[in-house]
C-alpha cells in the first residue's frame, strides 16, 4: 500500500514542478536563507507593501502563469504552440495605450476609463487569437507557422497603432494593476492571477471545454465522430489564449505605465511554452493538467529570480538557465518518466527474484542439510 502511494505521487503531473520548486527552495536555503525573508516596507507613495524574493516570484510569475493557462489549452487542442504571444501582448498593450492617451502621446489626463481601454485590449487580443485560430482550425495550417505571421508582423503593427510614438499614461491609478493598490500590501498581479485561475477552474468544472479539448487533441477524427466540432474547439482555444494575452498585456504595460514595442514581453512565448512542458503536458497535444502548467510558470520565475540573485555574469546567465531547463524538461518528459518507472519496476522485480533465489538457496541448504543428517545416520 505504501508503495502504491509513492507511485501515485510520482506519477502525478504536479510532481515534477513541485519537486523543481522544492529543489530551488533548498538551493536558496543553503546559499542564503535571506531568500525566504519577507518584510513589510513603505513605498515612495507612503503605502505599505510586502517585499522579498518570494513576493517577487509571485509578482513577476503572474503574467506567465496567466499565459500558461491559454497556452495549455492551445497545446492540448491543436498539438502545436502559439509563438506570437509576445507580439500580441505588444499589440494589445499598444491598443490599450491608444485608448487611454488618445492621439496625444503625453496627455495630462487619461482620455477614457481604464476599464474601456482594457475591454478594447481584450477585444484586440481575442481578434489576434481568432486570426491565429482561423488559420489553424479552418485552413489547417500548422500552429507554429500560422502564428509566425503575427510573430513577425505584431511589433510593427503595435508601433503603427500609436503612430510609432511612446505614450505615457499620466494616471497613477493605472499603475495599480502591475504594482500595489494603496493599503493592500500584496501585489495586485497576484489577485489578477488568482481571478484568472478561478475563472478557468470554474469553466473546466462546469463546462465540457476540458473534455472536448482533450478529445480533439487525442484524436480529432474520433472526436468528430462523437459529435464534437474540432474546428470550433481549436478556434476557441486560440481565442481564450488571446484573452489571456490581453490580461498579461494589462499587467506588463501597467508596470511601467508605457510601452516599448520592440522589447515588451520579448521571448515570453518561449517561457509560456516551457511552462506547459514543465507541467509535464505533452507538447503534441491531448491530455493536459492546467495546474501543472501554472506551477511550471512559477518554477520558471523562481529560476529567473534565483539566477538574478546569484552573482552570475551577464554572459553566462542564459547558459545557466539553459542547463537547468534541459534537466527539468528532460525529467518531466513523459517518455523519460515512463522509462524511469519501468526501471524501478525492473529493479523491484529483480529484488523479488533475488529474494526468491535467496529463499530457494536456503531451502536447498535445508534440504542438503537434511540429506547430510541422513547420511550421518547411515
Amino acid at each position, binding site marked *: 500500500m505504501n508503495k502504491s502511494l509513492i507511485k501515485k505521487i510520482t506519477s502525478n503531473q504536479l510532481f515534477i514542478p513541485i519537486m523543481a520548486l522544492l529543489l530551488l527552495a533548498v538551493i536558496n536555503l543553503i546559499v542564503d536563507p*535571506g531568500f525566504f525573508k519577507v518584510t513589510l516596507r513603505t513605498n*515612495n507613495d507612503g503605502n505599505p507593501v510586502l517585499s522579498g524574493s518570494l513576493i*517577487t516570484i509571485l509578482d513577476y510569475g503572474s503574467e506567465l502563469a496567466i499565459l500558461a493557462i491559454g497556452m495549455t489549452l492551445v497545446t492540448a487542442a491543436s498539438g502545436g504552440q502559439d509563438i506570437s504571444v509576445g507580439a500580441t501582448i505588444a499589440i494589445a498593450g499598444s491598443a490599450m495605450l491608444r485608448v487611454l492617451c488618445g492621439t496625444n502621446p*503625453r496627455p495630462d489626463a487619461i482620455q477614457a476609463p481604464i476599464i474601456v481601454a482594457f475591454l478594447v485590449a481584450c477585444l484586440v487580443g481575442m481578434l489576434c487569437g481568432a486570426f491565429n485560430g482561423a488559420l489553424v482550425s479552418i485552413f489547417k495550417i500548422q500552429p507554429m507557422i500560422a502564428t509566425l505571421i503575427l510573430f513577425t508582423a505584431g511589433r510593427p503593427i503595435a508601433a503603427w497603432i500609436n503612430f510609432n510614438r511612446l505614450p505615457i499614461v499620466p494616471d497613477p491609478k493605472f499603475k495599480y494593476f502591475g504594482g*500595489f493598490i494603496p493599503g493592500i500590501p500584496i501585489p495586485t498581479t497576484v489577485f489578477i492571477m488568482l481571478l484568472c485561475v478561478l475563472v478557468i477552474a470554474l469553466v473546466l468544472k462546469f463546462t465540457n471545454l476540458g473534455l472536448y479539448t482533450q478529445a480533439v487533441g487525442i484524436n480529432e477524427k474520433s472526436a468528430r465522430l462523437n459529435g464534437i466540432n474540432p474546428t470550433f474547439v481549436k478556434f476557441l482555444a486560440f481565442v481564450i489564449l488571446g484573452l489571456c494575452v490581453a490580461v498579461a498585456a494589462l499587467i506588463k504595460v501597467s508596470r511601467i505605465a508605457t510601452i516599448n514595442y520592440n522589447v*515588451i514581453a520579448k521571448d515570453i512565448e518561449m517561457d509560456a511554452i516551457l511552462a506547459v512542458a514543465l507541467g509535464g503536458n505533452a507538447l503534441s497535444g491531448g491530455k493536459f493538467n492546467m495546474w501543472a502548467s501554472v506551477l511550471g510558470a512559477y518554477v520558471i520565475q523562481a529560476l529567473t529570480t534565483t539566477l538574478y*540573485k546569484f552573482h552570475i555574469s551577464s554572459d553566462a546567465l542564459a547558459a545557466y538557465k539553459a542547463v537547468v531547463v534541459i534537466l527539468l524538461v528532460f525529467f518531466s518528459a513523459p517518455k523519460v518518466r515512463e522509462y524511469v518507472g519501468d526501471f524501478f519496476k525492473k529493479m523491484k522485480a529483480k529484488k523479488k527474484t533475488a529474494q526468491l533465489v535467496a529463499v530457494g538457496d536456503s531451502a536447498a541448504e535445508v534440504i542438503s542439510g537434511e540429506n547430510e543428517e541422513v547420511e550421518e545416520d547411515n
Partner: protein
Amino acid sequence: MKKVVALIMASVFAFSVVGCSKKEDKKETTKSDETKAESQTPEKKDGLIKVGIINNDPNESGYRTANDADLKAMFTKENGYDASFNYSLKNDEQIQYAKTFIQDEVDYLLLSAADTAGWDSVLQDAKAAGVKVILFDRTIDADPSLYEASIVSDMNKEGQTAVDWLASQNLPEYNVIHIQGVMGSAAQQGRSGALDKKVAAEGNWKIVKQQTAEWNAEKAQQIVQSVIDSGEKFNVIYAENDDMAKGAVAALDAAGISHGVGKDVVVMGFDCNKWALEELLKQNWNYDGQCNPFQASYIDAIIKDLEAGKTPEKTIIMEEKGFDAATIKQEDVDKYGI
C-alpha cells in the same frame, strides 16, 4: 449557427488579410511612386542634389525615429536636395536598396548599415558609377577609400563622460548597480567599458550587481528588485539606456528608496528621451547621457564641402552631451529630447 460562426470567422480573416494587404499596398505604391518620379528625371533636376538614404527601420527605437525625422527635415527640396528613403533592419535588403540607388544614378548614397560586413562589392560598384558614399550613425568593415566620410557616435566617449560626471559627484563610496544593454552591442560595450575601467582603478568603487536587462525596463526592474530583496547596499544605478533606468526607478519606488538629486540613490540613464529629461528636470534622476541622433546637419556640411571640391575628414565624431539634473533647463529638454 455553424454557418454564422463560419461566416464571422471568414469575415474576421478576410478583414485581417485586407488589413495587412492594405498596409503592404500603401508601401508599394509609395515605393513605385518614388521609382516613377526617379525614372522621369534621370538627370539632375535643376540644381537639386540627388541623394539616396538607406536607414534602419524608424520603428526600431525612439533614437531611430528622431534620426529619421531629422534626416527628413534636412533633405528637402527647399534645402536643394532630391532625396529618396529606404528602410531595412536587414543587411541584404539594404544592399539591394543600395544597388537600386546606384542604378538610379544618385549623387550621394547615405548609409546607416544594419551590419558591418558585406559592403565591399556594392561600394565598389558605387565608386565605379561615381556615387559618393557617406556613412552615418554606424561604421562598416570596408576600405576607407570606398567612402567619403563617416559620422559616428563614440560610445566609449559617452561612457567616459558619464563616469567622469559620476566621479565628480565625490560620493564617499560608490556601490553601483550596473544594468547593461544587449551584450555585445556597440552601445553596451562603450558604456560598460568606461565604468568597468573606473571600478578596477578605484578602491571605493564597487559593483554590487552587473547584469544585462537587454534594454528592457521590466528586466531592469527585476534586477534591482533582486538586489533590494537580498538587502545589499547600493547608492548608484548606472543603466545603459533610459528605459532600463525607468524600470530600476520603479523598483526603488516600490521599495520606498529615495532617488534623485540629494537623495539616497543616484540614477543615471542614456539616450536623452524627452520623458527622461523631464525626470531630470523634476530631479527624480541625476544624469542622462546623450546619444546624438541629429546627424543631418553634419551630413549636409560634408556634402557642401564635397560640392565645393574640398575633402572632408574621414571620421567625424559627433558632439554628445551629458545632462546633470542640477543644471538642466526646459530649453535643453525641448532641444535635445527625442
